[in-house]
């Protein structure tokens, strides 16, 4: 079983169809699968439902797929860092389903773990709870949320090996590990492919069982809010 592919276009071959659901890892522009998003754009696949916490910016990340109108619907917790998104949404061209961020994370985790539904207190008494089943546990009210799966998950890790084992770096981990478990097929891009046995098996974040295809990408890693402090004495 060869999991390592030569490039991003090759990893997506045979996996794409119009109207499919794709999960994309990342938080803001941090830890997003930059190369696979570009390959999705170039593939021309359309009418996508994209599950991703955010929607990128105008010229980077998922914003690129908005610009080309390949996305029909976003399932996200926080968006609108880009004008094209705003325009499409306000004109009714783009559907949008908001989820509380923790609910979205848990829905992906549940989908990957074979859990079709779970109860949470998050959103009780708000718009989010409308139309959802309410249930009492120990005197408190909770709402039912459902597990999410995707036809394809695209994730970004720091390093990977030929078995598909992945490790993430710092806060670039975010949604990537759960989304890796919730794709019928999961494709990962990494900054470095390391020889098998390089990882301490106690430290692997995503076991290779969840990853069907893997590439080494080139990562711009754009920063959204460059925030610094000054040294007192330069």
């Amino acid at each position: 079983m060869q999991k390592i592919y030569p490039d991003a276009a090759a990893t997506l071959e045979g996996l794409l169809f119009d109207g499919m659901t794709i999960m994309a890892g990342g938080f803001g522009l941090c830890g997003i699968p930059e190369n696979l998003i570009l390959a999705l754009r170039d593939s021309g696949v359309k009418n996508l439902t994209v599950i991703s916490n955010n929607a990128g910016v105008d010229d980077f990340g998922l914003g690129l797929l908005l610009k080309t109108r390949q996305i029909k619907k976003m399932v996200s917790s926080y968006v609108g860092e880009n004008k094209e998104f705003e325009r499409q949404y306000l004109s009714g061209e783009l559907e949008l389903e908001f989820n509380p961020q923790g609910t979205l994370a848990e829905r992906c985790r549940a989908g990957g773990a074979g859990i079709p539904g779970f109860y949470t207190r998050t959103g009780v008494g708000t718009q989010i709870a409308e139309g959802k089943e309410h249930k009492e546990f120990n005197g408190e009210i909770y709402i039912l949320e459902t597990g999410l799966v995707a036809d394809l998950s695209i994730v970004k890790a720091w390093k990977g090996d030929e078995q598909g084992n992945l490790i993430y770096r710092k806060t670039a981990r975010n949604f990537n590990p759960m989304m890796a478990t919730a794709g019928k097929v999961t494709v990962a891009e990494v900054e470095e492919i390391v020889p098998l046995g390089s990882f301490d098996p106690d430290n692997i974040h995503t076991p290779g069982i969840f990853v069907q295809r893997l590439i080494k990408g080139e990562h711009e890693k754009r920063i959204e809010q460059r925030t610094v402090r000054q040294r007192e004495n330069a």
Partner: protein
Amino acid sequence: MPWDRNQMAERAAKELEDGFYVNLGIGIPTLVANYIGENIDVTLQSENGMLGMGPFPYEDEIDPDLINAGKQTITELRRTSYFSSADSFGMIRGGHIDIAILGAMEVSEKGDLANWMIPGKLVKGMGGAMDLVAGVKRVVVVMDHASKSGAPKLLHECSLPLTGQQVVDMVITNLGVFKVDRGKGMTLIELAPDVSIENVKSSTQADFNIAI
């Protein structure tokens, strides 16, 4: 004289206790980190998957893989750990964070909170706010007492869509401090210097008790 942003943050910092795990929202709450007493040790959580958040980096320390929930570049500490968003919100939803300090648009006298959308305006989403107010042990709101146009933000009922129902434990405004008994009512417990109870009453719609 009403408190300014920094004074409100300073007041909020008094709610922190030694050993607390703390989540700070965007805006004035972020400033709270500047006023943590030297004799107490708290750990800041960032809901995108980090416990033990350090200060902003020096220019040569910037790391695109290291950001906070406001997408700002930050640094790590010796105590830092990283984890997934699912684990992070497990921590939040499971009641392991001692206190969240958040901004708000409106708070009702029963502790309802609205801070994520204004109908008719572009909605950017609730992010992690609904999870935080539903899961964190204690929720402290820091906000201006009235809107820029002078409309009260402490109301009988929130007019905006809720972020959480009966979730607020304390409100710190530029005029003073209110304790909230979730589902019951609020009590004014502190005034900013030279602010009178009448000042507060005139710009508050919510009913409140007074215990100063």
